């Protein structure tokens, strides 16, 4: 599991590579805690190379989203693989998260505000 970040003006883009499973959950927790504590609260998660996530991983994402929204920011998701998109639809989480087809669209949603 690899998590990399880059700054685009006031937006932080976070790219996930690999699988969020029990073995890699701690890495994701550690990295997302840094994001929650950071100054930039406008976050775009790029899931282009995220190939797997289970209900436990989804819970983790919701936890991050709640904390970031409480700090007046948002976590926007982008570039989901079809199977992950399906997962978000099944769980209705596509109505909780703002999901964009690609990273650029997601970043622009913050810029337009």
């Amino acid at each position, binding site marked *: 599991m690899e998590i990399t970040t880059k700054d685009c003006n006031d937006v932080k883009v976070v790219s996930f590579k690999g699988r969020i499973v029990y073995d890699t959950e701690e890495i994701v927790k550690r990295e997302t805690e840094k994001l929650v504590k950071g100054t930039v609260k406008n976050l775009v998660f790029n899931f282009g190379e995220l190939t797997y996530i289970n209900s*436990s991983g989804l819970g983790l994402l919701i936890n991050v989203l709640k904390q970031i929204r409480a700090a007046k920011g948002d976590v926007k998701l982008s570039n989901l693989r079809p199977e992950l998109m399906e997962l978000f639809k099944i*769980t209705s989480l596509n109505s909780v998260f703002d999901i964009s087809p690609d990273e650029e669209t997601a970043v622009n949603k913050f810029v337009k505000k």
Partner: protein
Amino acid sequence: MVLFENQLYIEFPSKKDFIDFVSNKVISSINTIAQEVHSQNINDETSMPQDLNIFGFGMNLSIDEALKNAIVHGNRVDPLKKVALSYYINSEKLEIIVRDEGIGFDHKNYKANQEIDAEAGRGLLLINNFMDEIKFNESGNEITMIKYLGKSKTAREDF
């Protein structure tokens, strides 16, 4: 047409560390046999069409969630209690059984309604979605998940 049957049994202590290991083992074991048989049958017109994609993401997720439920909710992460997974596959269906040593899940009174942004409680919803049939034993400590091979019986697209 090549007909086949295969089964596997794994028993392990209730530690979360085992979930990824066991699901990977099971998925790769199922895939190996399914692919071998598929390659034998591929040019055989008497064979029923099998969709190998059903052994991908959704199957992995169902096994993952069932093991997590058994370890966390069934055995309450007590390493002295064991979880047993067995699967049985033949030309028509794949059946996966996961059993724990807990007091049992109250499947009759279970209601899946929950806050949409709750941080837990989606495991069974996901299993239900990706498998064709699920059933519990009377005491609720054993779940059987069934996927029919060939054309899926569920309406949704599989992957």
